[in-house]
């Protein structure tokens, strides 16, 4: 066993089209690597070897007939919060332990029609609530760069799988940074599209006004390729926007000459790891060298983002998670003798600590007498945060910030301190509140060998600009062939 022959989806796609490799060979390679390594990484909750091989064979037939599209035959892993008909979908929760969805998410249907190969379902914090994947009820995914450390979260399984070459790419979801933060901590690319760019139909809701599905890949180009397929209006999701989908790979090569890059004061604060700050500042310099103009600016309401987020996200979650009541599907505490008892026992047993904490928070902020002070106030602050960004994007084209304040922390380090845990999303949360696209790209490794990510944020639906800036930076700092030691061993 050695490193993958093709580091990116783009290269793999070319090789498949050219006939240099078949989908069955590639799929087998990834399934073998999962067999070999996933007992250490613990990225997958469910692997579907038979289904994957069947899809790969079908893809090969299409490729031979010349009926393939760019993603045909490319294997991919899916975060276990996006429904695939007939395959268990647990959301990392005991309450959905045996749940098999009777339908597929719109993004899954789109990928299926391109004949992408689904390897399996990837681990996550329970109901996407968490920043370390330690809140999964089934297993703690490890950071492939240091197995003692967390991969980030909540899409930690997806990030770890791509970092450890257990899948060429993955889908994650981002409610407050759940794609970008683990991407940064695992040294890969993670893109959260504009709210409304990708259909949420079939994505099990955490916070409906913040959730968004996005690609997690080994290159910016790959992220653009995946976005090309999953983006677009969906009549089944009223919040998806009826806007044309451009070819996101187009214009990536155009560079950053003349591009105005905003650097918000509020994102370079005390408490930032010095190695992280240096790597990000170097990244800014690199783009300056490429011809970008750097603009210092302010996003004055940044300090309220976390508080605002934990009111809105928990309020929506408290309602979204009400359906897990033991009545129709999922876990039910069988010993209960009466309805109320069944609800209480099922939900007490079925949900983990963090999920219950958030349900209670959300229930509280929506309660009579508190709604005005919390929920409505948070919505007002959300508007101010949105306005901050709207004003900022009059002065610049993209904003560059660290993705996370620190590199990956140790397993167990923050589990007893939810507030510390919440702070690891401090730089990513605002983009969700404002509905903006954001991407995290690796910009360095610490001396201890831990990845560092830089984040690019753009105005709504400015994915082409965000991707171009990220791609431009990535060209100066390529990483796709860089793997953690355990992959090569």
């Amino acid at each position, binding site marked *: 066993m050695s490193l993958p022959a093709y580091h990116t989806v783009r290269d793999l796609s070319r090789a498949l089209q050219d006939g240099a490799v078949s989908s069955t060979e590639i799929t087998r390679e990834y399934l073998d690597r999962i067999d070999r390594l996933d007992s250490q990484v613990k990225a997958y909750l469910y692997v579907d070897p038979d289904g994957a091989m069947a899809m790969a064979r079908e893809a090969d037939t299409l490729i031979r007939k010349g009926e393939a599209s760019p993603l045909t035959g490319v294997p991919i892993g899916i975060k276990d919060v996006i429904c695939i008909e007939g395959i268990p979908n647990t959301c990392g929760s005991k309450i959905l332990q045996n749940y098999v969805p009777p339908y597929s998410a719109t993004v899954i249907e789109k990928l299926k029609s391109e004949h992408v190969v689904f390897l399996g379902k990837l681990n996550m914090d329970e109901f996407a609530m968490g920043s370390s994947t330690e809140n999964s009820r089934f297993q703690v995914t490890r950071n492939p760069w240091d197995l003692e450390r967390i991969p980030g979260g909540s899409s930690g399984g997806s990030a770890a799988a791509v970092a450890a070459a257990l899948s060429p790419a993955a889908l994650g979801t981002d409610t407050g940074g759940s794609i970008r933060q683990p991407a940064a901590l695992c040294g890969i690319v993670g893109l959260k599209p504009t709210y409304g760019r990708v259909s949420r139909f079939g994505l099990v809701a955490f916070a*409906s006004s913040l959730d968004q599905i996005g690609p997690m890949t080994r290159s910016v180009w790959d992220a653009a390729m995946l976005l090309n397929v999953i983006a677009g209006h969906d009549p089944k999701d009223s919040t998806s926007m009826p806007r044309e989908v451009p070819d996101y790979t187009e214009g990536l090569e155009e560079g950053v000459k003349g591009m105005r890059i905003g650097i918000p004061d509020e994102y370079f604060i005390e408490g930032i790891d010095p190695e992280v700050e240096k790597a990000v500042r170097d990244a800014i310099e690199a783009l300056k060298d490429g011809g970008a103009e750097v603009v210092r600016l302010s996003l004055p309401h940044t300090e309220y983002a976390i508080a605002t987020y934990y009111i809105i996200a928990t309020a929506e979650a408290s*309602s979204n998670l009400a359906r897990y009541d033991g009545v129709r599907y999922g876990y039910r505490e069988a010993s209960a003798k009466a309805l109320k008892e069944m609800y209480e026992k099922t939900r007490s047993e079925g949900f983990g600590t963090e999920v219950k904490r958030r349900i209670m928070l959300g*229930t509280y902020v929506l309660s009579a007498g508190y709604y005005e002070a919390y929920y409505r106030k948070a919505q007002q602050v959300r508007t101010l945060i949105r306005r901050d960004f709207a004003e900022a994007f009059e002065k610049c084209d993209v904003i560059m910030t660290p993705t996370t304040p620190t590199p990956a922390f140790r397993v167990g380090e923050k589990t007893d301190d939810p507030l510390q845990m919440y702070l690891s999303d401090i730089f990513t949360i605002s983009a969700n509140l404002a509905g903006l696209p954001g991407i995290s790209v690796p910009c360095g490794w610490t001396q201890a060998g831990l990845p560092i990510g830089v984040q690019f944020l753009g105005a709504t639906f400015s994915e082409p600009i965000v991707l171009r800036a990220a791609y431009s930076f990535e060209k100066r700092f390529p990483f796709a062939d860089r793997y953690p030691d355990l992959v090569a061993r």
Partner: protein
Amino acid sequence: MEYEPVIGLEVHAQLNTSTKIFCSCSTEFGAPPNTHICPVCTGQPGVLPVLNKKVVEYAIKMGLATHCTIARVSRFARKNYFYPDLPKGYQISQYELPLAEHGFVEILVDGDTKRIGLTRIHMEEDAGKLVHPGSFTDTPYSLVDYNRSGVPLIEIVSEPDMRSPREAGAYLRTLRAILRYLEISDGNMEEGSFRCDANISVRPRGSEKFGTRTELKNMNSFRNVEKALEYEIERQIAVLESGETVVQETRLWDAAAGVTRTMRGKEEADDYRYFPDPDLLPLVVEESWVEDVRKSLPELPSEKRDRLVSQYGIPLYDAEVITAEKAVADYFEACVAVCDAPKQASNWVMVEVLRELKESKREITDFPVTARHLGEMILMIEKGTISGKIAKTVFAEMVATGDPPEKIVREKNLIQVTDQEAIEAVIDEVLSENPEQVDRYRGGKTKLLGFFVGQVMKKTKGKANPQMVNKILKEKLDK
């Protein structure tokens, strides 16, 4: 002390769209359990609601028909509570920004019209239904049927403008008539497509301040609403008269016992934690859409009633009864078009036709006697072809067979005898058979005229024209 009740009603009406409000499942009533369901209306993880435009159109119709202002922007909100028939753990409804507000309807009670204000009309989804094997209290388990989950409802909330159970009844009948005229709901209370909760309080007559109210639930007919209100008024007055205070609570109407009973108190009331549903965008209703809907509105019950009064000269009461159902009003008008005798037509429709419908539990659209046939029959009375008395026989035959009146009259030989000579011949016969009575009549006992008329009618099997019989008899006897 004299008390005055203050009543406000909340009505839930099922809209008769062919599909549900947030998914494309059928709304058909009476299908086998859980056959009209999908991931959306069973609340599977990850599904999203998509608003059925037809529901909005229907709700706008009701809003316009009740003089409401239609909101340019309204919002759906989540009403959070747990119950097994509610698959998502919340009901999608409207809260802060409803679709329609500030309307009214006019009701007619004892010949007087009264305006009842409407606070709001909003759209929401219905829940499923629990099925309990055995009785509710000792059922070993419960089953849930989600066919009804997601069926569209509108909730119509009135101002506390009603002052008697009869006004409440009239208000409900008026709303139901409007819904049915608009053809957006069948308004069937027994089947649950039209449900009513009542808020009721009493206060000393002349007082401006409202008393403490109770909310009444579980009334499944107009009559039961009135009965429950009557009971509750008496109960609240008795509480106040005994020096105690009315407790704010929800009470259930027990129709069998004829009483209301405490269901839950104010403290146990749910906190529904309403908040805007982030899965649905604010609903924007363009003015042009409202105008298009306005143009499509049919003639409404009160408009039709007033038109019938002015166009046909029938009494207001008749017009009110006839226009309660659009199909009945249509029937009446079609009947008048044939016979051109509005008062006779309204009598026949109000008395005979409505009685037959009620007895046979039929809709007028399934009634064997067509408006045309009834009109033709009335025309035969008007022309003297048959007598009013014979007409009753003919009508009964028409109900039984669906045959046109001419056929029945011809085959049963029921045509009125108006032939002077024929009638004279029968009268001569009667007179010669009863010489004694003739003498007594001529001796001054003129009351015997009725006896002779009866004998003539008997011989003609009721077919002799009564006026002619009278006239000829008198001529002959007074000779």
